[in-house]
């Protein structure tokens, strides 16, 4: 039995300082939902409001339509995994996992079965009698996860659970977490500032900035069709250009600085001729032109990375952009000082209004809470 989580007009204040102004959000049954944003954006604050460790100044949070605002933290039946694991240092692995179960009136056999199962699922059954200080970071993380899941919580909350692990273990653990979550089928809210991690594990992601949700979508939607320049630059790298709209007999196009004109078919109807816009192009959305058209630049710096080459390209107006090229054709590697022309893939680039707060691509709408 899985749970939906609803946030309705949630407000968080510290004294008179509003950290989260009116936030609304719905998380589906069994969903792996990630709150992603720079530090201080309010994502952990929001998570702790669900857990009951932060007060809710206004609005409602409900699980399956039951409002939980006034339920104290220890009665919310929540599984929580903390950034520093928060393993009880004076208990063995087994005692740690057993701790929460003890309160739930279970038969001896049922309890033992659940414990044995979960220890196997998270692969810590061989260390069950060890004390936490004899465990590695990854093992402690598994204990924390087991301890949170074993009580069959209504929802699972994870607060930057991988940020204290080294890079290799982080990748290994995020796959494990994803696997276990799907196996148990529990609605999960995951907080992170690591975009790669978010893209890898989530069903949907909410990008937050300054207490406001910027965009909600699947990893693919968010990466390919960001709603504003904040999301475009926060998720992955985007090169931003100050361009213009041009409407003439050939149809609607965007014009890059320097005059390179790209016909567009997916712009929204409201764009006007000569309107100033921000064009956002990811490094892999460039191709090096042989047709004589494109943005002029010189290679400033090149980094060979095996599967692809990264170039820093200096444009005529002095702007330095990042370009990434597949290395399938090894003859086409350019050196510092080479002059090139860059074309863009009109189906993939994004166009925003002058302030960068609204996407001009048809069908990409701002998140309205």
């Amino acid at each position: 039995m899985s749970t939906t989580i609803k946030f309705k007009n949630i407000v968080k204040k510290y004294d008179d300082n509003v950290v989260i102004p009116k936030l609304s959000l719905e998380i589906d049954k069994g969903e792996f939902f990630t709150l992603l944003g720079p530090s201080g954006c309010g994502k952990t604050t929001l998570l702790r409001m669900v857990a009951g460790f932060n007060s809710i100044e206004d609005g409602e949070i409900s699980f399956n339509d039951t409002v939980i605002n006034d339920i104290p933290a220890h009665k919310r039946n929540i599984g929580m995994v903390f950034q520093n694991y928060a393993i009880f240092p004076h208990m063995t692995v087994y005692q740690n996992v057993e701790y929460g179960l003890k309160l739930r009136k279970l038969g001896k056999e049922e309890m033992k079965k659940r414990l044995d199962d979960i220890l196997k699922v998270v692969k810590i059954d061989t260390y069950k009698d060890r004390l936490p200080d004899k465990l590695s970071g990854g093992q402690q993380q598994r204990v924390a996860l087991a301890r949170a899941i074993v009580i069959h919580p209504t929802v699972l909350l994870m607060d930057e659970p991988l940020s204290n692990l080294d890079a290799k273990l982080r990748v290994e653990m995020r796959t494990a977490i994803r696997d276990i979550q799907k196996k148990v089928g529990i609605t999960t809210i995951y907080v992170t500032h690591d975009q790669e991690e978010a893209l890898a594990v989530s069903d949907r992601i909410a990008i937050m900035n300054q207490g406001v949700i910027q965009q909600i979508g699947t990893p693919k939607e968010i990466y390919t069709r960001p709603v504003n320049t904040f999301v475009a630059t926060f998720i992955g790298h985007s090169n931003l250009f100050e361009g213009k709209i041009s409407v003439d007999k050939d149809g609607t196009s965007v014009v890059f600085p320097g005059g390179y004109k790209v016909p567009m078919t997916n712009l929204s109807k409201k764009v006007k001729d000569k309107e100033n816009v921000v064009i956002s192009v990811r490094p892999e959305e460039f191709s090096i032109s042989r047709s004589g058209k494109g943005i002029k630049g010189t290679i400033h710096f090149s980094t060979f990375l095996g599967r692809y080459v990264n170039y820093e390209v200096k444009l005529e107006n002095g702007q330095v952009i990042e370009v990434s090229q597949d290395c399938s054709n090894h003859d086409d590697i350019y050196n510092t000082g080479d002059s090139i022309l860059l074309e863009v893939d009109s189906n993939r680039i994004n166009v925003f209004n002058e302030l960068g707060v609204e996407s001009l691509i048809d069908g990409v709408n701002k998140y309205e809470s």
Partner: protein
Amino acid sequence: MKAKSRKKFKLDFWTSISILSFLVFVVFLIYPMFSLFIQSFKDVNSGKFTLDNFAMFFSKKYYYETLKNSFVVTILVTILAIVIGAPLAYIMTTTKIRFKSLIEVLIILSVLSPPFIGAYSWILLLGRNGVVTKFLTNTLGIKVPSIYGFTGILLVFTLKLFPYIYMYVSGALKKMDASLGEAAESLGCSGIRKVATIILPLIRPTILAGSLLVFMNCLADFGTPMLIGEGYRTMPVLIYSEFISEVGGQANFAAALSVLMILITSVIFIGQKYLVNKKSYVMSSLRPMEAKKIKGYKNVLAHLYVYIVVGLAIIPQATVIYTSFLKTRGSMFVKGFSLNSYKTVLNKLGSSIANTYTYGIIAILIIVLLGMFISYVSVRKKNTFTSLLDTITMFPYIIPGSVLGITLLLAFNKKPLVLGGTFIIIVVVYVIRRLPYTIRSSAAILYQLSPSVEEASISLGYSPMKTFFKVTAVMMLPGVLSGAILSWITVINELSASVILYTGKTRTMSVAIYTEVIRASYGTAAALSTILTVTTIISLLIFFKLSGKKEISL
């Protein structure tokens, strides 16, 4: 849609605990202080408000001289303690000294014994009938200057209190990275110049903090000047004698004196805080200074200095233990050794031993519980109220023991709460005076524990109260216990408040030692002191074992 007000006041576990702890302090500290204050402004006979009590103090030389005496003694002792203690710490940290660990334990021991034992054993040695005095006068014909009065007080206090400076300074030196000194040397600055330009400035805040401790202890101590001061009277002695004096009716005057004392110590305390806060250095030592072997005359001098200073400091303890095994007839010592003194103690004064342990243990239990609660709310549930609570609990730190004793007695000798003469009032004074040690050590460990461990327990379904006892308290315990043992050691050695509060039935060991000394029954006093010292040593060993450290901080 109207938003419901969710700010309704809920009486949860921690709010109740805060309020309860606060009430304890309202009843046993704020109310008594307040009534002391009122009393100090009341006329003895008419009960009208007046400033006469204060005027009387400042108008008669007999009275105001004690204040001057107190200051002269305290300032001189503080300077001497720094002059002796700081070099000792420097030598012990930078050079290899033989039997170093033994010396460290001896220093701690000399700190932890009650100061009046020092006074009394110096009387045994250098007093009118002292062993050394007799030897020098009778055998060598040298006339020894009198130990009584100013010189005696100075000697006893200095030897008793320099270890504080030693402990503070060596603590700071341990935190200082060796590279600092080496950097100075590589720049061509060594020896005394290095000490003066690098090391001294860096430990100055520490020296200041240590001096405050010396200053407060010296200013507040009543036992030493009482025993050895004779005509040279200090403030605590005056307060005590005015309060106890059988002429009666002097309670208001004693109250006024107490208010004055509190005023002085507060000003000094706040002034010191201001000075230290303004200038303190954050130091982290990756590689602490190493004790190096030195050669030649410097090595001899260093050893001589350490041994002589520590030897002098430990003489009182040694004398007392030695004396306790001497054969006695009545209260006179005769030739040979025996356990007479111990027998007498057990027959006549056994109850004082039992009292010390009973009251001490009750007080410690309360201290541990209150200490954990108060440190928890002041660290984890920080708000205006709990900060106030924290500040109030630290206040007794600066109230001299005898003043606190008088304060409580004045408040609880009358209805509605008559506690005077009961053992409860002694336990109360123990708790109030020694709680700060435990609060501070508990708070220190709490700061190291991540709150998320508690949140993990709560999210797993344990209420905040259950979480505290199952998780937080268990993790805090080592820190709490080491603080509690320090509290315990100072509780069993407490004299200045209990000497005012005791009755025949509630006499404790330290009080018994004091009264035996006053009666010149030195044998029994020595035996009791030895029992006290042994208890202290055992407690100290447990402390070392628990904390895994070989040092204490007061």
